[in-house]
């Protein structure tokens, strides 16, 4: 690897840069997060990177940024093969990144933030000189203005994002990677920021890779597009040659391949004649940031039905799940189970046999320090035989009831007494699935990303278990960002976007392109 002398570096970073990725592969253990992905960003163009969650977009970009070097493949900057092992390498070659969330220090002024971001901040900063220099930079080079003396906390979201971009220009980045830069902006702000970026590429000052979920942004601002799907290249091309439907098809994996296949003989009774198990009525929920995350959502779930909620992650599914699991209060609206008000207390859970399995079970559904057997006992520890006389724990029964589940769900563990945090992610998922699915009187089951981190065999196993549950009359709600999974196991599909249910369709007649556009926030 050659180090560029500083004087050449200056010239190098001034030149319009191109970025080529050649067969980039990134493996985490056995899991291939990015599989031989190649793409080209010619100088002065915008390249959109599209894909569902977990498609490998972030992995790919992190390889380019040097956060985790690629397992194999080559990165070329400006036509030269460059070894990028560390973020400082990326910076050296003029590659900068703008993140989804702001990285400005809120209590510092814009000037301070910009100076702080330099890799070579001196121990004592000559603020007078730095301010003068920044003002000159603003007057000559900066394509747009931000108030230098204001604190970052006083800036509006759009101004903050502009500052982040300006920071990259100030650092002399010539290739910019933007990770969903508009997700925290209002539509007007988003349009403004993207238009500014577009101008800079047209002027030949920047080449851009933009990660996005939004088709609108692809069509308005990008020259080329690459679609990733499950770590593999699903499609690539010039934006002007593509239309919405073909893009949606690429993202969903091709309309032809994913036919809904009900995996078990269905009960013949139609949905309408079955009893409603769960009714969600005009539910609104606030997110962690205090903003409305779920807005006026209503739906019904019938016995013996698998209902799917599709959507790009971060559109309110997590908050909806937390309300269903009793982990977050609803702002307005209510839940009804079997026609009665449901509040998520232990008595309600028992009465209605309503189990919830959130995503990331180790964080949301486990007591990591407690043993696996104790974690599996969460639903049953106060019932005989695990509890005698309602209050005395019978540890032998708790261990004993865990043993067949370890067998049936092939959980790899040293034994039921192992703390659950010592299990691998897939095995935690299995253990918690065992807990939620194994109760026989189960009536309502709500699961989110049930197969995340599982291999193919395990995924099939889970799907089979869910289908079995449905066939014995359990009402099942599956929230997933994996559309294939939903098409395979659900009877009916809802699409959630922007905190609302925007589309409903029976799975048997679902049109992928339509679902895709609704997921992307159109429709």
């Amino acid at each position, binding site marked *: 690897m050659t180090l560029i002398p500083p004087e050449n570096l200056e010239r190098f970073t001034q030149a319009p840069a191109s970025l080529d990725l050649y067969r980039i592969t990134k493996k985490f*253990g056995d899991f291939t997060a990015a599989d031989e992905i190649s793409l080209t960003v010619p100088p002065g163009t915008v390249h959109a990177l599209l894909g569902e969650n977990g498609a490998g977009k972030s992995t790919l970009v992190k390889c380019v940024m040097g956060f985790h070097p690629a397992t194999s493949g080559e990165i070329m900057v400006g036509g030269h093969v460059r070894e990028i092992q560390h973020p400082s390498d990326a910076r050296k070659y003029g590659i900068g990144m703008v993140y989804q969330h702001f990285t400005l220090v809120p209590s510092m002024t814009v000037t301070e933030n910009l100076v702080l971001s330099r890799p070579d901040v001196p121990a004592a900063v000559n603020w007078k000189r730095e301010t003068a220099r920044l003002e000159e930079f603003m007057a000559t080079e900066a394509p747009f203005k931000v108030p230098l003396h204001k604190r970052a906390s006083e800036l509006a979201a759009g101004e903050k994002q502009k500052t982040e971009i300006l920071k990259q220009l100030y650092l002399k980045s010539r290739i910019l990677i933007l990770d969903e830069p508009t997700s925290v902006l209002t539509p007007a702000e988003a349009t403004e920021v993207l238009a500014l970026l577009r101008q800079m590429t047209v002027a030949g000052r920047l080449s851009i890779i933009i990660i996005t979920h939004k088709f609108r942004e692809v069509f308005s601002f990008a020259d080329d597009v690459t679609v990733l799907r499950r770590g593999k290249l699903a499609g690539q091309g010039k934006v002007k040659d593509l239309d919405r439907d073909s893009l949606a098809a690429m993202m969903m994996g091709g309309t032809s391949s994913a036919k809904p296949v009900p995996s078990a003989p269905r009960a013949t009774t139609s949905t309408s004649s079955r009893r409603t198990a769960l009714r969600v009525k005009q539910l609104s929920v606030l997110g962690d940031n205090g903003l409305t995350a779920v807005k006026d959502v209503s739906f019904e779930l019938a016995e013996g039905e698998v209902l799917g909620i599709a959507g790009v992650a971060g559109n309110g599914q997590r908050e909806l799940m937390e309300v269903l699991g*009793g982990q977050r209060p609803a702002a307005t609206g209510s839940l009804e189970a079997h026609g009665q008000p449901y509040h998520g*207390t*232990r008595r309600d859970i028992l009465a209605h046999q309503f189990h919830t399995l*959130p995503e990331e079970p180790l*964080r949301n559904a486990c007591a990591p*320090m407690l043993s696996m057997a104790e974690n599996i006992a969460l639903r049953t520890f*106060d019932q005989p035989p695990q509890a005698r006389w309602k*209050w*005395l724990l019978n540890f032998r029964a708790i261990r004993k009831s865990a043993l067949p589940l370890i067998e049936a769900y092939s959980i790899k563990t040293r034994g039921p007494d192992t703390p659950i945090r010592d299990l691998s992610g897939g095995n935690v998922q299995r253990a918690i699935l065992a807990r939620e699915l194994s109760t026989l009187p189960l009536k309502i089951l709500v699961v989110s990303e049930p197969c995340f981190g599982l291999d193919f065999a395990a995924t099939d196993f889970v799907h089979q278990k869910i289908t079995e549950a449905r066939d014995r009359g359990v009402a099942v709600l599956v929230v997933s960002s994996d559309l294939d999974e939903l098409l395979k196991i659900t009877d009916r599909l809802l699409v959630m976007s922007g905190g609302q249910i925007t589309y409903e369709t029976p799975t048997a007649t679902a049109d992928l392109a339509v679902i895709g556009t609704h997921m992307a926030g159109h429709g």
Partner: protein
Amino acid sequence: MAELSATPSVQPGSAGLAPLPASPRLRRAWGPAFEAILIPLGAILLALVLFGLFCKAQGQDPFKVYASIYKASFGSWFAFQNTLMRTAPLMLTALCTALPARLGMIVIGNEGALVMGGIGAVIAGLAVPAWPHHLALGFMALSGIVWGGLWISLSAGLRQYRGVNETISSLLLNYISIAILNHLVNGPMKDPTSLNKPSSFPIAEEIMLGRITFGDFTMRVHWGLAFGLVACVILWFLMQRTTFGFQARFIGANPKAARLGGLPVNRTTLITCFLAGGCAGVAGMVEVAAVHGRANESLAAGFGYAGILVAFVARFHPLAIVPVSLLLGGILASSGILQRAHKLPDSTSLVFQGLVFLVILFSDSLYGRFKIFKP
């Protein structure tokens, strides 16, 4: 297979900590237990060395100082009884920190809960001077539990419903409770005959808590010791063996997961903190009913703060509190001898306690660091 061989199993003795069971099966069964015992022991040893250096700096021979400490705490039956008398309140106040710790809370309001329990016991004792001995004592203990329990519940409620940090609020409540005590013994409850040391009226001699007796054999130690032992065992049982304890431990490990199971997080927290405060309250009741016979500033003698230390050293395990209380009771009992025999200021024992506390807190970061304990 490649993954398995990448982390070779630990060679016994390779880390220099030899005397551990060599067979993997034994280590699986006992590794964690050894870890939980050896790390605190090692920490105490380190504290002993540091305190020895301190003594050396004061011009004293550390070995002679330790010999004196031993003699004054465990060296004779007389000394041992002195130690036991201090062990009793320590066990009870330590539970005040140990129980909420199971819920992931750090409560340090032990001193305040002890004082409130003492006040409650005095009020109860003054109200029923003519009741039969056992009944009156029971009433006083109950009052101590309620007063101390509500005091810590206040902290818990502020945390659960208002998001106030329980460590800060319980610490500040200590000062408030001492102020309340001072107000009461200088005002409404003041015994006019207590001139030098403002105190409440004394409770009747007949309803005082007596000394432990077995037939003809009478100890100088009062029944408070039994209260402490019983409380430790009962609360260990409650936390380890009952559905309530399971709930509490689950909530402590992950409140979010506990909510998923519909466990009553707020109620369990409040009840646990009530029990914790109740224990410290009983300590206050014992101090009143067995030692002072009245409420005055002697109630706030530092047993509450020492209880925090005991709870941390015992790693919040109710049964481990018993031996640790005995140890610290010994150190407290020997503070006088340091002054008399070695001309060290009597706050020297506080230096020792402080060193132990710091080293124990530091040793918390060592768990899981030693491969030798890994199954």
